[in-house]
């Protein structure tokens, strides 16, 4: 089946616009790490994954865990775009009583496979899901997205060891490698390089790709899906804040909401309507 890459690019763009709008409405949130992941989210949810918003619990479904849970806005925007809930719901992000909590809550929101937010734990739970799927002979695949700063958490490496030990080739991890965390660049704060070699040394198969090229993302996911015997990590080079000029490649927009003027400008840059 031919992939409509333009369609995927449009999806990613729409997701970005909703990320900006919802975070602005909320008055808080994490735009930088949400925007850097948008292209991967579009490819996952509109091309790669076997999921059905009308049947969110179907047993053979693919599962996605956002281990970098602070990027909840990009997950929510993607789920809304996919039809798990409405775009109006998106604007309730972080409000008291909302299904859209500051970090994803599986008890409140359909489409969320695991409550995350405390870094590293999502990956560990994804390993559990993949292990259960293997045990059951369930064809559903597990995808987990982790951040680069998140690689500093020890549990990530415990999870990686276990995934390799149990030969979880039904697990694909995407590393959103935008190079920046809260206090600055990863390698200035606590050097994580070389990421590719580190993960390979834990007996995983890896690929390094341009995390903003939907074709590369789709092709890497296909390779990962066919790879047998080892779990697979797609290390996606991205730009934090991608798509909004003043948010790009800086830690300043890790966890800050744009004000009205900034949000309006961001949406305009993305070609959207306010």
């Amino acid at each position, binding site marked *: 089946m031919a992939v409509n890459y333009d369609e995927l690019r449009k999806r990613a763009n729409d997701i970005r616009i909703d990320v900006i709008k919802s975070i602005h409405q909320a008055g808080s949130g994490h735009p930088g790490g949400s925007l850097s992941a948008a292209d991967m989210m579009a490819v996952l949810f509109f091309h790669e994954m076997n999921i059905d918003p009308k049947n969110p619990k179907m047993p053979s479904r693919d599962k996605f865990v956002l281990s970098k849970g602070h990027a909840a806005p990009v997950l929510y925007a993607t789920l809304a775009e996919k039809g798990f809930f409405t775009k109006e719901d998106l604007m309730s992000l972080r409000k008291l009583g909302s299904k859209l909590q500051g970090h994803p*809550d*599986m*008890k409140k929101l359909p489409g969320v*496979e*695991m*409550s995350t*937010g*405390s870094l*590293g*734990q999502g*990956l*560990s*739970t*994804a*390993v*559990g*899901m*993949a*292990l*259960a*799927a293997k*045990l*059951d002979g369930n064809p559903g695949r597990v995808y987990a997205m982790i951040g680069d700063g998140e690689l500093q958490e*020890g*549990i990530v490496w*415990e*999870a990686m*060891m*276990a995934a390799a*030990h*149990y030969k979880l080739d039904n697990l694909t991890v995407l590393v959103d490698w935008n190079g920046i965390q809260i206090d600055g660049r990863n390698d200035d704060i606590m050097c994580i390089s070389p990421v590719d070699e580190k993960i390979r040394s834990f007996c995983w198969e890896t690929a390094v790709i341009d995390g903003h090229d939907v074709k590369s993302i789709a092709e890497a996911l296909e390779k990962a899906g066919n790879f047998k015997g080892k779990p697979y990590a797609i290390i996606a080079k991205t730009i934090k804040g991608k798509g909004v000029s003043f948010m790009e490649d800086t830690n300043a927009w890790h966890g800050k909401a744009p004000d009205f003027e900034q949000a309006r400008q961001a949406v305009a840059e993305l070609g959207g309507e306010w």
Partner: protein
Amino acid sequence: MADKIATRKAYGETLAALGADNNNIVVLDADLSGSTMTKLFAKENPDRFFNVGIAEQNLYGIAAGMAASGKTVFASTFAIFATGRAFEIIRNSIGYPHANVKICATHAGVTVGEDGGSHQSIEDIALMRTIPGMTVICPADAVSTENLIKAVAEMDGPAYVRLGRSAVPVLYREEDSIEIGKAVTLREGKDFTVIATGIMVNEALTAAEALAEQGLDIRVIDMHTIKPIDEAAIIKAGKETKGIITAEEHTVMGGLGSAVAEVVVRNCPVPMDFIGIKDMFGQSGKPAELLKEYNLTAEDIKASVLRMFNQIKA
């Protein structure tokens, strides 16, 4: 009735039997299967047993993921590592989503013995109690362990079960009914009440026998479920007896004693005393020596009752 069986052994045997009948149960361990007795399940059901190695945080993360996939998960290690090292994983990945994971942790308290203070969890009940939606259980003997493990497998949601290393006397008969959340009054009494948990239940019974000879009629309650705590049993004791002493192989801060006091103060304020570890770390020694060293014996319970009796008289 003269048998002594470790609660961890009863756990291992019960789990192995449950696993044979229910193939939705999976068991995880962190390189301590030989000690926690999950090895018994592993032997019977090897395809549903997973060792994660010395990685307790990952142990409970994987447990959460398997539970989210519909499994009934039992995940074991020593109490200190489960509730200490993995606390936040239990809190955020198991507690917060109310996952169907049963945290069955062994080697709790000072009776761990010679391994010493680093391995003796004296704070696990307090820690687990603070997690919303967590059921917290500390069985006193092998029979109640079997009952409660079966009950925990049936219930939906997270539970913490505290198990010990040492062989302990059997207190219950096979036919006794032991339910989560329902304290058992093992000895009726109208003077003072001792509410105990775990190994201290037997100590409380011994103290009650000794005190009977001195004309004091002591009620002994096995509070095996610390959360949800049996408030009715506590209030009844507060209304019907003159004082309550709690006894646990645990710090006096935040565990059974505190949980009981929270009920007593609001409903039936009576004098209370707390038998437990007085804000100190454990150390190496033989289990029996350590119980003496930390004032966790029948003698200590008896002395506390007599003190309270004398104070009230005065």
